């Protein structure tokens, strides 16, 4: 029975108790995802969530859709198999900064490179939550954790830059506490044809509380972040009085009127990457929103087209022809 009625958020809640710590940023992400997905017009049975291992990777259990809680770091590989084998499914990955960028970095890189039509939610809390607080590949230098008692000396990844370096076709960033922005970003990702990576700043109240406060706290957010909206001027500040402008290779702060218009679909990923580099500059607002959104051939389309073409050209393979071909001889 196809579901005919539109879904509500509640339809997407599974019967399992949600078991994150009270106050964890994961709750609001779950809630936003359920809200956005309910509105996509996709029947529940065609939605599928894949995850690895981590607090964030518990996500699929809480979605009343199909789902697989797989092994650590490998969700993109499962998702690629799933999407190739059944392109009708709307496939989503929930992963963490450890799951997706530490053990799973290569699979993430390759799914983005190939542009498999899968949406990837990267819960970045800059820590390993589930294993109780070791530093992660996105932890800030100097962070003291159980495995870095004198402070971490690992230079962190910038997930947006990483994704762009892999040739990702859709890259965005949002914040667990910025609900409206998160929902808009999720909706844009859902609409994108191809791989979409959404980095979500997510607060781990237990092991890395407040790591994003300096930019993401509601009191400073408007001044400390800039929302990259394709086709719109790059403005920020509570009154949107300031903006950004690109001069040569440099990005400068300018009055709103002189701000450049943001383009996320240039043929070069250069602009998006340039914006990603603002992260390192404390004087600059942190870009969130849509860094890149560009059309490109989709891997699962390409693979399935070859299957279709081969069938069209050679006819659907018959078992007999599989055996009876090439140099044969008879024994009588």
């Amino acid at each position, binding site marked *: *029975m*196809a*579901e005919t009625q539109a879904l509500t958020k509640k339809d997407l809640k599974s019967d*399992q108790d949600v078991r994150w710590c009270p106050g964890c940023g994961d709750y609001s992400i779950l809630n936003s995802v359920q809200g956005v997905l309910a509105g996509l017009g996709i*029947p*529940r*049975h*065609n939605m*599928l969530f*894949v995850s690895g*291992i981590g607090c964030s990777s518990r996500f*699929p*259990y809480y979605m*009343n*859709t*199909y*789902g*697989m*809680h*797989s*092994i650590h770091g*490998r969700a*993109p*590989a*499962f*998702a*690629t*198999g*799933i*999407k*190739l*084998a*059944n392109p*009708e*499914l709307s496939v989503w990955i929930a992963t963490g900064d450890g799951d997706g960028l530490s053990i799973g970095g*290569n*699979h993430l890189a*390759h799914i983005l490179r190939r542009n498999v039509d899968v949406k990837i939610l990267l819960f970045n809390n800059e820590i390993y939550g589930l294993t109780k607080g070791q530093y992660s590949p996105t932890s800030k230098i100097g962070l003291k954790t159980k495995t870095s008692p004198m402070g971490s000396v690992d230079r962190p990844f910038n997930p947006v830059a990483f994704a762009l370096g892999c040739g990702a076709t859709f890259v965005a960033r949002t914040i667990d506490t910025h609900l409206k922005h998160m929902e808009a970003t999720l909706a844009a990702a859902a609409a994108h044809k191809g791989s979409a990576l959404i980095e979500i700043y997510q607060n781990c109240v237990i092991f890395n509380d407040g790591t994003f406060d300096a930019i993401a706290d509601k009191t400073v957010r408007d001044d400390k972040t800039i929302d990259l909206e394709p086709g719109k001027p790059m403005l920020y500040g509570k009154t949107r009085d300031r903006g950004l402008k690109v001069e040569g290779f440099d990005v400068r702060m300018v009055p709103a009127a002189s701000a450049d218009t943001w383009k996320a679909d240039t043929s070069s990923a250069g602009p998006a990457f340039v914006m990603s580099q603002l992260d390192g500059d404390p004087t600059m607002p942190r870009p969130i929103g849509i860094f890149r959104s560009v059309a490109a051939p989709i891997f699962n389309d390409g*693979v*399935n087209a*070859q*299957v279709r*073409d*081969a*069938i069209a*050209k050679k*006819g*659907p*393979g018959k*078992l*007999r022809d*599989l*055996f*009876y071909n*090439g*140099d*044969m*001889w*008879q*024994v009588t």
Partner: protein
Amino acid sequence: MTQTRNVGAELPSQQFENVVIRFAGDSGDGMQITGSQFTHTAALLGNDLATFPDFPAEIRAPAGTQPGVSGFQVRFSSSDIHTPGDRPDVLVAMNPAALIVNIKDLAPGGIVIVNTGQFTERDVAKAGLKSNPMTDGTLSGYRKIEIDINDRVKRALEGSPLSPKDVQRCKNFYTLGLMYWLYSRPLDPTVAWLKDKFSKKPELAEANIKALTAGFNAGDIQELFQARYEVAPCTTMAPGTYKNITGNEALAIGLVAGAELAGLKVFIGSYPITPASSILEQLASYKNYGVISFQAEDEIAAICSAIGGSYTGHLGVTTTSGPGMALKGEAMGLAVSLELPLVIVDVQRGGPSTGLPTKTEQADLLQAIFGRNSEAPIPVLAASTPSDAFECAVEACRIAVQYMTPVILLSDGYIANGAEPWRLPDVDKLPRFPAKFTTVAPEGGFLPYARDEKRARPWVKPGTPGLEHRIGGLEKAHLTGHISYDPENHDFMVRMRAAKVAGVRDTIPTPAVVGEPQGDLLVLGWGSTYGSIASAVEIARHKGQKVSRMHLRHVWPLPAGLDEIFSRFKAILIPEMNLGQLARLLRSEYQRHDFISYSKVQGLPFKTFELNNKIDAILGK
């Protein structure tokens, strides 16, 4: 018809039951093609056949060096044969390196045909030799036939539009022509093959055909031989349509067939690795069979993608060799926990670690059975010959689908690259084992971890309305499949998974004892030792020894009835290309028998005589 003079007619014709020829030359000399063509023609003439190609690990090792030698051994016979032969009767050596590497294998008194055109001092030096093996006594005890093939090809192709370098590339066909003459074989099949292969470069086809014919017609060479030889067709081969097939080809075909017999399409996620790569390559060419082939970024992604494929309702397959197997262990454990069908193919090679990538070995058996964390049982099958790889692939698909379980299929480098005649199956007679997908919730609600009479859980394609559910690697409650940390449930589930896999035993036959049902010795094998064991036991029985044999296709779980069979023999000899892994397994299962492990770990199959010597030693003769 190609024009062939009948020069050799006046030579006596000698009948042989079977002959072993080894073609050996530089990697660039085209020995694999020469061997395959010879094989192909022999097949058409109705001989039984076995081949053994042996090529260097390097893509193109420096020309003329010993590591650069490439060989192809073919045995053709008028009676049933099981191996490519212990030692060649005839060795064709295209250069000093090929000669020196292979000569020690040649049967005493055997013929060695040498291309003297490639035996200059420089050639000898390139082969790393201090003296010329043509003259330093190396060849004493053999019948040496010297031919300057370089020169002969040049002369045969005089006036050809080809460059001198390309002319020399026809050497192998000249040689092949000569061998065709010697063994009284027709040229036509090879001529046809050349025309087809070079249909777009007719000048190459023509030159090679000329070289082939010239080799066949080289009257002055023929005088060097004392006879022409004949090997009659094999009359004991079962009637049917045959083709020559390598193990990897048969395995690939078997996977497609197995999926089809289950009503499924293949999803293969794989990462190239010697000697498994060609299975992926072949499946990539079966797109019109609906095969989805995915070359993943590594072995882990490969198996994970295949599990993803299975989850959606395809038959997930992943293919690899030892080092790749070692990487897949964690994901195999997940497949065990998810209880989804999956076929994992391990084409074993020499190890440990990177080891001897192009050589054969059987040393992944215990890894296949035990190489995962915790209790993660998986049925394991092993192919014994190239064509058996087809049947094993089908059987692996059956077990995977009927029991909702990953299955491991072991092959090895010897099977993968070796070829034998395969009697093509009758499509209608193949057993079907259609996969059953659950599409509607049964009375009382859908339970993802309920079980059928084989203890298999239901298979649901995502996309099925109303049956949405989640699966994962944490322990699951019986029936509901919800996460469960309950101690009793865990114990129950661990034993349930073990019982399910042990239950495969109920749908597999007890393997046949070949020979008397009791006796002094049972030679028990698994995998590619099949041919050597069959040959050796045949010989032993001819000698009157009370020896029988048995070969295991299902190595885990072991078939029912073995204990009883073993008890009918005084001892059980287990030859393995490892340090005794099956022997260890059997000892752990059956306490009261005398298992004798016989190990050879040289990257090479057992020779028949080695096994016979061992049998003799055990039986005291």
